[in-house]
């Protein structure tokens, strides 16, 4: 008779055979990504009820596990169908503000242009600082049943750190410095959010959407190759954050349509407050003036810059409404705050 090691050595081994199915995820074209391991009883579609612990989805519940305090129990509260893909994309596309920006291409600029760029960088380093704090605030409440959403938020924290640092670097790299603090940028609405979906629609969709539309005009705003690269690289990251927000909103509206009016309320507040500019408001006077100078090419071309600024604002608003429409909130068009509605193209 074979020896029973569990008995002979006082082994417990109760953990050894808690499951019978064998899982062998295989790498795909992009390696072994979260998509490849999202299978069987480990898949998001097999998600069970949460238990207020941090038990990873698919792990066997531990008898006597202690609760950690409230976290979101419903998948719709935090989920976006693209979060697996976005997480892996984020890990693949991390970049270095130290080495991936051609700092050596910076050249002395006319004083007014350098000051305008530094003012914009001052505002952006401030905005991105909050954009890192906000997902951090919500991480403890994201259940490990939906851990991919949590992983994505952790990549966003990293992205925003890099943005905070790259704009600070830009302000201090070309003979300038930081200038006036932003105020009334609408950032308080992000940190005031009391619900994940509220936070996501205001930060991911609205604020990061506005920033993204601006970054995509970086070829016009940037005065040097380094500036343009900063905007391009940052826009790449913002696209992920925005995509998460749009798909999270879509998931909520698809699965909990009764929340539609509640979400409108959050947007009513954000569009109405912050001087009507929304979260990440670029109409704050120093930012507005700096953008007009950069877009025009100097103080003496302020009026040309103003016309381009209005185009930027138009682009921001129309892309914002388009994104909301994609998410299923197309009726926002009829409720848009007046300072935004003036720029809206006909449907």
């Amino acid at each position, binding site marked *: 008779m074979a020896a029973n090691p569990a008995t002979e*050595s006082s*082994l417990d081994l*109760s*953990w*050894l*055979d808690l499951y019978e199915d064998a899982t*062998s995820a295989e*790498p795909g074209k*992009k*390696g*072994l990504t979260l998509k490849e391991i999202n299978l069987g009883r*480990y898949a998001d579609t097999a998600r069970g009820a949460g238990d207020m*612990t*941090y038990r*990873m989805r698919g*792990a066997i519940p*531990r008898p006597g596990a*202690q609760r*950690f305090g409230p976290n979101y129990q419903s998948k719709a509260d935090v989920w976006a169908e693209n979060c697996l893909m976005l*997480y892996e994309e984020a890990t*693949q596309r*991390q970049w*270095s503000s*130290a*080495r991936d*920006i051609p*700092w050596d291409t910076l050249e002395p600029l006319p004083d007014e242009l350098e000051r305008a760029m530094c003012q914009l960088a*001052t505002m952006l380093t401030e905005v991105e*600082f909050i954009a890192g704090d906000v*997902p951090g*605030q919500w*991480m403890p409440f994201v259940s490990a049943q939906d851990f991919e959403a*949590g*992983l994505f938020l952790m*990549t966003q924290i*990293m992205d925003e*750190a890099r943005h905070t*640092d790259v704009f600070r*670097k830009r*302000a*201090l*790299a070309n*003979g*300038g*410095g*930081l200038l*006036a*603090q932003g105020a009334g940028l609408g*950032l*308080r609405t992000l*940190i005031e959010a009391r619900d994940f979906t509220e936070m996501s629609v205001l930060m991911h969709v609205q604020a990061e959407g506005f920033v993204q539309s601006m970054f995509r005009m970086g070829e016009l705003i940037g005065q040097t190759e380094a500036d343009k690269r900063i905007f391009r690289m940052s826009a790449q990251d913002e696209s992920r954050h925005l995509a998460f927000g749009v798909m999270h909103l879509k998931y909520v509206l698809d699965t909990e349509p009764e929340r539609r009016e509640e979400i409108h309320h959050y947007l009513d507040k954000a569009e109405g407050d912050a001087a009507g500019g929304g979260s990440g408001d670029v*109409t704050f006077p*120093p930012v*507005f*003036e*700096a953008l007009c100078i950069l877009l025009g090419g100097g103080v003496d071309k302020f009026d040309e810059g103003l016309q381009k600024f*209005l185009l930027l604002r138009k682009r921001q608003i129309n892309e914002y409404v388009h994104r909301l429409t994609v998410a299923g909130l197309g009726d926002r068009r009829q409720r848009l705050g*007046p*300072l935004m*509605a003036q720029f809206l193209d006909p449907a």
Partner: protein
Amino acid sequence: MSTGEALARAAQAAQVEIPQEARDRARELGWEDGLIELALAKGHSLQVIWQALRGGVDGKRAKEFLQGGQAAIPRDLSWMHVPTEWGIRARPKDPAMGLTIADLMIGTYGDVPDIWTNRSEIARGSYPNPVVEDMGYTIFEKALVWADCCIPLYEEAIRDRWVSATDLNWNSLEPLPHDIERAVCQFMTEHSERAYVAGALWSGWLPEISYGFIELKLFLSTVIYDLARHSEAFRKRALANGGGLGLQAPTDFSRVAREARSFPELAAILFVQDSMLYTLFSRGDEFAQNQLERDLYRLVARDRKRMLDYHIERLKHMLFKLPDRRDEQNLYFNKAESRMGKEWLDPAVSEPLAILLGGGVDNIARGREKLRELRKAQVDNYLEHLRQATFIRKHINGRLEQAAQA
């Protein structure tokens, strides 16, 4: 027609609703009733009118402009001349590392104050707006959070980034004996959860820390990102070779970290875990079953080393600046050691490691002997890490001592 004209006409055509905020602001600035409507009728867009209002154009100037005079958009450009330090030209000290945040620590921009007083999200070194809302930060004291090493560690973390999906050779995995594979999977289940919890906990403290310590916040962001990657990499390994996720991790230690009421308490508690895990993963070759696991543990240990470096220097700095808080730290270490000792005795924690160290259930006695050596090394190194932080822990918690010898 110019773009501006087109936009202006479009605004007119749309019969723009004038927001109450604009009317209120116009009243504050002494604009006569009907002046906004007049501006709209003259083809100015609401946005331009709003910019004038935000910029403080008073009623007299607005009226003069609309009667055919000067620019309505204020161009005082006062932000161009705020008294911040100007003329900064940061350059890379080490071309291989590029332009690092260490290179930005020049002039007044390099001053990290002992006490940061601004309650807004102002960027350190920029010119403060006199009237701003309180953003709710609670950590304003450098001694609680700061370590000089966070500056180089931030850039090193970015330089050393890796990707679990493609930097590990998943195709190299080969079937393992049942007991070994199950032990690997149980180990991975535990550590996937531990990393996720630690990432969530650090994340939750980020919004508490004010901008005065921006470099520290940047570094913590890399820690959070590292922990995300550890969590998913361990999960991937559990699901890649014929096993699965096992029993969830014990909750004792993570709960005590979650219970921390201050940043220094959290840091002290995680000091214990991060020191122990650094030693564990840096000795990963002893329990790795294949090259993939060796690579994984080596990468994780490298990341953990940065966390540990931060812990040591932060504690050392805090004890130097706040010597009256030295004894208090014993309370946190004791609590954390106690929970860790309890978890080390948990069969789902100790047995998988013993099986992996011994080479199978049949060699469990040998595995336990090796585990005792490993636990001793973890405790010895932990005490040494504390010593490096100038903290002498005279007696470790009895439960941990007992668990290390079990």
